[in-house]
Every structure is written in C-alpha cells, then in structure tokens.
C-alpha cells in the first residue's frame, strides 16, 4: 500500500516537472512547482509508513518543514508574478535574456 503512495508521489513529481518545462504562463509554473513539492512530500510520508509498524516520525517532521518552505516560496513567487504583471503587463517570462 505504502509503495503505491510512493509511486504516486514520483508520478506527481514527474508530472509537475513536465508542466514546469512546457507551460509558459507563470501561474502554471508556480502550480507545477507546488505539485512537484506535493509529490516529494507524498514519497516521504509513504516511506515513513513502510519502515515499521508505527510510522516513523522523522520523515513527517521533514514534510512539515517542507510544507512551510513551500508556502513561503509560493507566496514569494506569487508576489513577484503580480509585481511583474504590474510593471510589464506580461504573465510570461521573456524567452531570451534581454541584452
């Protein structure tokens, strides 16, 4: 059972990675990162359940820390995106760095 969750986590990670690369809209990229994060957290939780009868608390602690980090990072990303929209009217990153 736990193995299934771990696989799902990996799948989410891969899906998120794909979305991050493919989509140009910043909102989608931010969402993609979040999904990748969720995937990793799922893997961690699944691994916690696999080791012994009582779930291992250490990976749970890692996940909580990770969630906190993800929230802050997402907040920063959203703030930057909004500011960029305000300044340039564009929700996508420019393709090439401007000279």
């Amino acid at each position, binding site marked *: 059972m736990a193995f299934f969750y771990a696989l799902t986590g990996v799948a989410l990670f891969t899906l998120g990675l794909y979305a991050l690369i493919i989509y140009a809209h910043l909102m989608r990229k*931010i969402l993609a990162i979040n999904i990748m994060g969720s995937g990793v957290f799922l893997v961690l939780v699944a691994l916690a359940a696999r080791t012994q009868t009582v779930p291992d608390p250490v990976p749970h602690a890692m996940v909580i820390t990770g969630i906190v980090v993800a929230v802050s990072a997402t907040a920063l990303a959203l703030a*930057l995106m909004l500011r960029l929209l305000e300044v340039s009217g*564009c929700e996508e990153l420019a393709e090439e*760095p401007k000279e």
Partner: protein
Amino acid sequence: MLTMQVQNVPWLVIVITLPLVGSLLCFLLPQQAKKLGLMTAFTIAASLIGLLFQVLDQGAQRYTVGGWDAPLGINLYVDGLSLLLLLMTALVGLGISVYATAYFNRDKTVYYWPLWLLLWSALNALFLSADLFNLYVCLELLGLSAVALVAIAGGADALGAAIRYLLVSLLGSLFYLLGVALIYHSVASVDIIIVAERIDATPPILAAMGLMSAGLLFKTALFPMHFWLPPAHANAPAPVSALLSALVVKASFYILLRLWLDVFPLPQEVLGQFLGLLGAAAVIWGGVQALRQTRLKMLIAYSTVAQIGYLFIAFPLATSIAWKGALYLLLSHALAKSAMFMAAGNILHFGGHDTILKLDRVAQRLPLTVAAFSLAGVSIMGLPPSGGFIGKWLLLNAALQAGEWWWALVLIGGGLLSAGYIFKVVGFAFTQTEASHEVHHVPAAMQWTAFMMALAAILVGLIAPWPLALMDIGLPFEMVVNKGSNG
C-alpha cells in the same frame, strides 16, 4: 585566561545566530538598518576570528544544538573546509556590506539589509550543517533571500530574472529533497556520518545520487543548467550581483563536494568524468559568450559561468591536490568577482550605463575602479601573482599527475578566453569616445572596497601555504578512502 574562555565559547552557534538577530533588528528598526547592518557584519567577522582560533587550537569541532543528538537533533560541524568557506564568506561579506552602505538609497536600504543578513545566516548555517535535511533547509533559505535581493532593483528585467531564478532554485531543491528521501529510506538517517557508514551502491542510492547532483548542479549553474544565471546576476544591484556570484553559487557547490567526499559510495568514475566534461563545456561556452557581450555586467556574469566550470574539473581527478586547487580557485573567484561587480557598479553609477564600447577613458576618471577591475582580472585569468594562479597551478599539476592532460588544455584555453574579455574591457577603459556623458561622483567607500577586494584576490596568491594548511584541518579530503567500507 582569555584564550581559555575564548576556546569554550560556542562560536559555531554564535556565527549562525548573529546574522539572524541582526536581520530581525534591521527589519524591526528600518531607520537604523544601515548602521545595524554594518555593525552586525563586523561582529560576525570578529566571531569568526574566535572560531578560527578555536579550530586552530582544538581541531575540527562538533556541536550538538540543544543537547539533542542525531537523528532528531541538529548537529553542527566545522573542519578546515567549512572554516575556509566561512572565512571567505565573512571577508567578502564585510566588503559587500561596506559597499552597500554607500550604494543603496534610502528606499532600497530598508529592504537590502534584512535580506542580506538573512542570506548570510543561511550561508553560515549551510557551511556548518552536519546532516542532509538541514542542508535542504539552509538551501531554501538561501534561495529565497537571494531571489528577493535580485528583485530589489524593481524593473521588468530584474523581476523576470528573479522569477526565473526562483523557479530554478525550487526545482533544484525539490530534486535534492527527493534524493534525501530516498537516502533516508535506505539508511534510516540523514546525519552525514551515519549515512557514510551505512551507505551502499544500491539502485535507490544511485538514483538519489543522480537526483541530488542534478538539483545541486541547477543551483550551481553548471553548463547547461546555467541559463538563469546571467540575467539574474547582471540585472541585480551591484552588491547583490557580487554576493550572488561570489557566495551563493558556491554554497551548492560546497554541498556537492561534501556529498562527493563523505556520502556518495565509491566509485564514481563515470559521474566524475561527466562532471568534468560539463565543466570544460562551461569554461569554453562561458568564455566565448563573455567575449560577445556588449554590457559589462553580462560579461562578468558569463565569466562566472566559465569560472564555475573550472571547479568541476577537480571531480574527474579527485585527488587532494585537485580539490585544493578547485577550492583555491573558489576562494580567489569570490574575492575577484565581487571586486569586478563592485567596479561595474561604480562605472554604472558614474556614467549611467555599462556599455563596454563607451567606457570613455574611465581609466583616467576612475583610476581606483579600473585598477580594481584589472587586478581582479589578473586573478580571473590565472596570471601570477594571484590566488587564481595558485588554483590553476594546483589543478594543472593534478591533471598532469593523473595523466589526464586534456583538462590542462581546458584550463589553459579558459585562461586565454578570459584574457580576451578582461583586456577587452581594460583596453576600452583607456580610449576616448566621441560623445561624453554626464557623470556622477562615485563615493569613496564604493571605490575603495572594490579595490581592496581585488587586492585581496592578489594577496591570497602570495600566502598560499596558510589557506592550504587550513583546508587540511579535520582531514576532509581523506575520507574518500575510508567510507563505504562497511557495506
């Protein structure tokens, strides 16, 4: 008596908490941010002197925070390698702090100092961490504060660069975290020492190796994962560019080096050669691109891409001399690159632009700045006497000793390319343009810090035996032989 007291102070903890406290104070008291920030910088440097004496006297130090040991507690560890990087951070950090006091206007100052001190505490914590998850946390903290610092400049270019940097940074961290998860699954610990004892070359571990390396390579901007670096470093304000190129990219390199030396099981021939190959590509690509740039800050940023490539040439060689050479290059680059970005900041401030072709006899109007750029350039080119030469010499020796002479050619070729772009700038600094532009006075603090950083890059090449001896404390490079022997 005093020395006895000094020895027993937990400098490790002080070095991490001082910048944190400083950051908070700067945030809470924005009017005093500049003074508080500068004071904090000096006290951090002073406490590092304390740590230096402690380590010189007692050797490598381990500290258990709060008395809770692994696997639930956080351990801090300092050996010669960490200490070298901490000292480098302090020296460059001090210079950047002084520079920043003169650089930023009132509005931006209140944002800069809390973020910069937060970043510094993340760096210090990172170099002192003894377990893999703590490294993850420090990496994230580092990345977020760095991104915010890039965005301070405010324009569309800077914001776009900041977002790109943020996405890449998060991507790298997630790869790393997934690797940590897999390692924990296999060995039930994240403490580096315990992991080193229990690790073995099973598929999950190999996958973890790949994931963690990939994540860290994204953050270190090794070719071809370097695309985010030039816009971020070029569009940030000058002191931020300096700290990004000099310090932030080195942090993920340090983690990779630690993993390589302490955690990853033997042997890594293939991965080593692969990293070396990417490094060589970075040297060539970065050098060529730098030559093509019209803006000074972009040139310097691509120079960083190239110089990072040099560091990875140590991986296929993997001897003590090779590591020391790479670390010496790392140290010299930190000093030289911060000097260069500071010089670029001065030129930008002076004339309002940083177009290389239009430098308009800056050599005469800003002699100290051009001297700073030139001296820094000497180190980047690897010409004697400079720290860059020492690093280059050690790597050349390591390459020839190992019989892999093609790396030597890469080093020499990279040196020639860097001579090309450095002297391109210096040459135009002597010549006149048709139309002069309006000039603004550059504060003495900005000119002198740039010059002092560049001078340090040169002087570090004359005192080589001491940093090299320092690196050996705690025998960080000896562990390659011992680990993985317990199955």
